[in-house]
């Protein structure tokens, strides 16, 4: 509400300019110290011995194995969670049943459980000491200290991302369009592919984006279940830890820089989605 030539007056709903600029200054200072400084520090440390050294450390076998494993984990766990998210959102928004609120609470549960506790749960369930885990190990399918355990741990901590994004959007869109398609004789799958999916695609992409960022970066839960075996179960974050503790600072921060670039890319895409498709994203992300 800027009215030109009205410098003399201040609107009733505005703070004095001094207050306003102080608050803006505090916001910049706070975020500079808390967010921008750590962000810059990653790259400064990675490039401490020059760009060549940083790139060379990324080509080391440890780093390459870690990158390959992390990509594999994400490639399996993210689509599975997307499948879950779509199914759960469909079940919750297209049907009326008792205990719906409780089900939503259960889906949200992983957000309030410590990643370390999540890893612990999986160790207790599938570890060699447990009934199921012991049997699986005997069959030659170990879960803990192996890839399936890491996938389970990753899925646990990223479990709610897609469902949470889709449910509010699908509630808002209602069922009328699907009902219309059904009365026109479309089959169930056809309704899903041609009516529902186009309406939720941006929200789905948004959820998958956040899910993926978290999946590639998960540390606590993976640290517990993976055993951190070099070349076998060490993901990027656990390799960063190992390198850092061996005082291989440049190597650790170079890998960290890779994940940081991924985080920045995620934020960029997320911001673009929010700018372009705000109306098709969950209400609480609108700003």
């Amino acid at each position: 509400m800027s009215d030109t030539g009205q410098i003399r007056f201040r609107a009733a709903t505005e703070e004095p300019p001094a207050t306003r600029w102080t608050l803006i200054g505090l916001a910049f200072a706070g975020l500079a110290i808390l967010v921008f400084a750590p962000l810059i520090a990653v790259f400064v440390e990675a490039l401490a011995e020059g760009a060549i050294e940083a790139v060379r450390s990324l080509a080391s076998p440890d780093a390459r194995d870690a990158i390959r494993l992390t990509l594999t984990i994400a490639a399996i766990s993210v689509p599975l969670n997307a499948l879950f998210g779509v199914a759960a959102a469909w079940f919750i928004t297209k049907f009326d049943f008792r205990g719906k609120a409780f089900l939503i609470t259960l889906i949200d549960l992983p957000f309030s459980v410590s990643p370390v506790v999540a890893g612990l749960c999986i160790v207790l369930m599938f570890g060699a000491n447990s009934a199921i885990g012991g049997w699986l190990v005997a069959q030659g399918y170990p879960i803990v200290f192996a890839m399936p355990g890491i996938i389970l741990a990753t899925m646990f901590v990223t479990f709610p991302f897609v469902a949470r994004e889709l449910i509010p959007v699908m509630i808002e869109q209602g069922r009328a369009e699907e009902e219309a398609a059904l009365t026109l004789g479309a089959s169930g799958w056809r309704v899903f592919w041609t009516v529902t999916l186009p309406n939720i695609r941006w929200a789905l992409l948004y959820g998958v984006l956040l899910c993926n960022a978290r999946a590639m970066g998960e540390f606590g839960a993976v640290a517990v279940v993976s055993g951190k075996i070099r070349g076998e179960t060490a993901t990027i974050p656990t390799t960063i830890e190992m390198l850092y503790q061996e005082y291989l600072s440049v190597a650790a921060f170079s890998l960290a820089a890779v994940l940081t670039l991924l985080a920045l890319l995620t934020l960029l895409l997320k911001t673009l989605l929010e700018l372009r498709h705000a109306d098709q994203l969950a209400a609480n992300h609108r700003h």
Partner: protein
Amino acid sequence: MHIEIDEISKAFGTTAALHPVSLSIPSGALVALLGPSGSGKTTLLRILGGLEFPTSGRVLFDGQDATGLTVQERRAGFVFQSYALFRHMTVFENIAYGLNARPRATRPTKAEIARRVTKLLELIQLPDIGARYPSQLSGGQRQRVALARALAIEPRMLLLDEPFGALDAKVRKELRQGLRDIHDTTGLTTVFVTHDQEEAMELADLVVVMSMGRIEQIGKPADIRARPATPFVKEFITA
């Protein structure tokens, strides 16, 4: 209080909401600003209340230049179209708000505030709703609470933006009489905005017909009916 509007104009960016308008409102009058949507009624009312500032021109209260007064200094009882009640406060707290907001030196005692709120609740004929929250009231009740809240600060004038706009026809008629009664008991100079010509004609002492940021005619309801000054007024009041 006598209100004088002297060559007030208002532009929002490049759109002119008000071309220079002048208007004199005698003390104690009940005035309707009548006109179609977008004619500048709300803008004029907000300028009187100090919520908007004119691009040029002056506002005089009892002959004193009030153009530079802040909202707080104007002490205008303002009733918003949406009522703008504070959702997290009870009706009692809403009405007491203006008194509690005064600096300590001029703030009445707790007992005095309670006494005044009780009296206002009786004035709007809702003595028993003090403990309720706005979300627990009907539209008509909210409107009356908003009026009581505005009256609590002992305003120098009463400004109402489409006070009955959000209500159904029956409640509207009842509250119309209620506003007339309150005006007559308090004797406050009162300006209300409406686009309902029947409402303006029935309730107001003086009707100001506006169109496209200009005042088309000022007059008593009977005069406007009998002698419309412009083709616009003629069409608007017969429509």
